[in-house]
């Protein structure tokens, strides 16, 4: 059953281009994710704490890749987020790009992404999970590069693809190590095999690979830079992929694998450091931004940092905070992104310095923005407040490094609060004069304010009903991650305690930063000019292209002699390697069996061959060639091969005559003018020739199978009535071979004829 929602969403994607072109309202396509959401919700609510619904369809089972799916507390929660937010995003996108010629393409890709993401969180097989993982990277690439006529958008899309794709490769390596170590490819079995994995010698390698892959996907420092650049995508895409769902895939995987991998310094240490660094980096870079979407992108970084940090801590409270924070973030961040898109849609700008007082023109959007911003800021009674409280509670309950954690969390949350107000409050409630030339700003259509309002109201409702949410959603998710039920329930109000004090401190600090926001804006250029990992990326990509260009220039030079040289050098290397590696050097002493006549013929042939190589006179070359041919013919004659000698002499005579016909039309024979190059060519040729000499000598001592010659000679007269065995072999025993030879010659003759005929026709054309 779990495969069907994935297929249904993909099918909705396939029909969406046709729907976009037809007169059917496009937002009706949201019925597909809405149906999936309803079905998932009913299954999820029926699921008990710690229970799972698993199913398995075969695939490449012997290789470990099967279509195994599972609905558990945590994956199910994310699946609900994907289908729920996805429904709203489809409605929003239909309004945001209404009438756009590529709306169909956007929806197609959005649905494909949704299907892949749903598959990712429901997969129970690591190979299957990896396939979905890569599919989300590819659809994300296509969506970021949606405006493909824009060169900058293409570059940013490629950046997102390369960074997450490289991380994906590390992830695959980690998965393979993990699967072979845990002796299972099923996630639900791997998480039970934690002791086996931790005691394995490859534990360090596989954990590092998986953390790298997850960090690239979830934009952790230093691989964070692709996420703000991915804001080149249309706003519905940013709201869905780059805040609510895809960037959470890394966090999802880390949480899911934590029972198998945690408990070591490598795990807790590296995740805590990564998370803290990302939290602070996002906060610092975010505070100087003035573009609404970039502000939100950097706060997404911060939140991803907090989530990673909480997984790194790994206590029950930490995991609980992580789930609450993740849920809260998905609700308010997608809402704020949509609000930013609505503002952009109506005013034509996303620059906060030009936005202000929009509450009068856009009252409903303003309410949605206010609710979402308050949740993000962590004001009670919103769900964001619950998340923040639990983060602080996690810190106060820590035995060691609690103070450091609290400092990082408080500072990070202060910035988040300031940024929430900047993105959600400032455009609507500040006194900055609106600067939208040529626009009469009015409220957006329902499809643009409805979805963010719905999400923002969810944030409020979840906060008010924290206990219920804790029971129905959070408790199941925590139990699925930690493999044991949660020991305490979720509540909004914790009484007067240290976390509450910290919340008050956060609020005061955040409001202070927000009040002074105009002082910070001018420093953006200076802070962004600091070279970071993105400049390393630029250099690497640039160098890669340069190396490829140079390599092509060397290997694909277009010069024939260079290709020949490469082939010969490779052959020589293989010859030499054979002798050096396996030995078998032949006997190189000149024996007493030397015969004068053939030795003279050999010297003659070799000398004439060298002469043909050196001679510059065309006639000289021909004479030298003739001498080589005749000397070899005489060698054949001496060594009992009269037929060969006859053939050789005939062919030799014909060749020389033909060359005579052609040769005087050719330009004079030239020598290589550069002595160094000439010497190199001779050295290469001599190396190959020497190797051939050695091979011939060695072959003489070799007989791998009994010869069939004896048999052929015995049959020659009795069976074929021929006294010349060579002739009998050619026309009888190997007649088919000879027939093939005739065909080859015929084709060659036809080729020659056609080449000559075209020349003749050309001449006639020129003459007439």
């Amino acid at each position: 059953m779990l495969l069907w929602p994935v297929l249904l969403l993909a099918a909705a994607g396939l029909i969406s281009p046709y729907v976009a072109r037809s007169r059917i309202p496009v937002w009706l396509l949201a019925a597909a994710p809405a149906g999936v959401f309803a079905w998932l919700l009913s299954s999820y609510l029926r699921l008990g704490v710690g229970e799972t619904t698993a199913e398995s369809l075969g695939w490449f089972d012997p290789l470990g890749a099967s279509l195994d799916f599972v609905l558990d507390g945590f994956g199910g929660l994310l699946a609900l987020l994907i289908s729920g937010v996805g429904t709203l995003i489809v409605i929003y996108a239909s309004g945001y790009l209404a009438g756009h010629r590529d709306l169909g393409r956007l929806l197609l890709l959005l649905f494909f992404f949704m299907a892949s993401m749903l598959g990712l969180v429901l997969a129970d097989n690591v190979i299957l999970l990896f396939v979905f993982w890569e599919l989300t990277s590819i659809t994300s690439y296509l969506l970021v590069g949606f405006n493909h006529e824009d060169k900058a958008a293409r570059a940013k899309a490629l950046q997102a693809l390369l960074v997450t794709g490289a991380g994906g490769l590390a992830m695959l390596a980690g998965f393979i190590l993990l699967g072979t170590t845990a002796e299972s490819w099923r996630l639900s079995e791997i998480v039970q095999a934690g002791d086996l994995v931790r005691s394995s010698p490859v534990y360090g390698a596989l954990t590092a690979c998986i953390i790298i892959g997850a960090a690239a996907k979830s934009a952790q420092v230093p691989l964070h830079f692709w996420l703000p650049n991915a804001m080149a995508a249309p706003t519905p895409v940013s709201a869905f992929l780059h805040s609510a769902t895809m960037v959470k895939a890394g966090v999802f995987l880390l949480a899911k694998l934590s029972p198998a991998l945690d408990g070591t310094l490598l795990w807790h240490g590296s995740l805590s450091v990564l998370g803290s660094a990302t939290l602070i980096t996002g906060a610092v870079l975010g505070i100087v931004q003035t573009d609404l979407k970039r502000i939100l992108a950097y706060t997404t970084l911060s939140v991803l940092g907090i989530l990673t940090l909480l997984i790194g801590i790994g206590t029950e409270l930490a995991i609980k905070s992580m789930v609450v924070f993740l849920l809260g973030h998905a609700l308010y961040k997608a809402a704020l992104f949509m609000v930013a898109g609505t503002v952009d849609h109506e005013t034509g700008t996303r620059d906060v310095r030009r936005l202000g007082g929009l509450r009068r023109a856009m009252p409903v959007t303003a309410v949605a923005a206010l609710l979402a911003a308050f949740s993000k800021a962590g004001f009670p009674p919103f769900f964001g407040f619950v998340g923040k409280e639990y983060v602080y509670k996690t810190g106060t309950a820590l035995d060691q490094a609690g103070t450091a954690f609290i400092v990082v969390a408080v500072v990070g949350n202060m910035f988040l609060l300031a940024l929430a107000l900047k993105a959600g409050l400032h455009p609507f409630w500040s006194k900055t004069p609106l600067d939208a030339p040529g626009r009469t700003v009015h409220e957006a259509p329902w499809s643009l304010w409805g979805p963010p309002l719905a999400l923002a109201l969810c944030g409020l409702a979840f906060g008010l009903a924290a206990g219920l949410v804790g029971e129905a959603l959070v408790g199941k998710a925590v139990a699925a991650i930690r493999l044991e039920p949660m020991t305490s329930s979720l509540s909004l109000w914790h009484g007067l305690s240290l976390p509450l004090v910290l919340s008050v401190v956060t609020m005061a600090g955040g409001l202070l930063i927000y009040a002074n926001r105009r002082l910070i804006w001018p420093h953006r250029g200076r802070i962004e000019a600091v070279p970071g990992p993105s400049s390393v990326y630029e250099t690497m990509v640039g160098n890669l292209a340069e190396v490829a260009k140079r390599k092509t220039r060397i290997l694909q030079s277009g010069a024939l002699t260079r290709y020949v040289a490469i082939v010969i050098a490779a052959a020589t290397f293989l010859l030499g390697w054979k002798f050096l590696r396996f030995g078998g050097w032949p006997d190189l002493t000149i024996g007493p069996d030397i015969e004068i006549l053939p030795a003279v013929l050999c010297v003659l042939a070799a000398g004439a061959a060298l002469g043909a190589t050196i001679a510059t006179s065309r006639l000289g070359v021909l004479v030298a060639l003739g001498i080589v041919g005749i000397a070899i013919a005489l060698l054949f004659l001496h060594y009992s091969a009269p037929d060969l000698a006859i053939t050789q002499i005939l062919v030799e005579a014909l060749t020389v005559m033909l060359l005579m016909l052609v040769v005087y039309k050719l330009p004079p024979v030239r020598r290589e003018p550069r002595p160094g190059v000439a010497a190199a060519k001779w050295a290469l040729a001599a190396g190959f020739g020497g190797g051939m000499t050695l091979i011939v000598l060695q072959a003489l001592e070799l007989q791998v199978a009994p010869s069939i010659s004896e048999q052929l000679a015995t049959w020659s007269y009795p069976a074929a009535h021929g006294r010349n065995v060579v002739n009998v072999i050619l026309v009888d025993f190997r007649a088919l071979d000879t027939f093939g030879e005739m065909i080859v010659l015929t084709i060659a003759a036809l080729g020659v004829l056609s080449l000559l005929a075209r020349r003749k026709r050309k001449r006639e054309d020129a003459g007439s």
Partner: protein
Amino acid sequence: MNLVLALCIGILFTAGIVCLLQRCMMRLVVGLILLGQAANLIVFTGAGLTSGEPALVAEGAKVPPPGAADALPQAMVLTAIVIGFGLTVFALTLLNRARETSGHDDLDAFSETDRI
């Protein structure tokens, strides 16, 4: 004697390869011919050398005399000689055509097919 022949083959290969590595068309053809000769000699020598005893069945006999030359490699070399001739003729005509069309005989300058 084998050593002398093997050296001769090596030198033929060397000369053939040097010719192939030249940029001038005439040398390319010469290189092809020399390589063909060298390869034929390898097959011929590889079967062992027999002097003065061709594989012929004498009048009245049914099989060649004992110790006669091996006929099979000879048959193969014969085929190879003829095929080599065909190759030479075809290559010569093709190169000549290429020279006529392009107006030069520099093999390294044939780097683009578009211009022809």
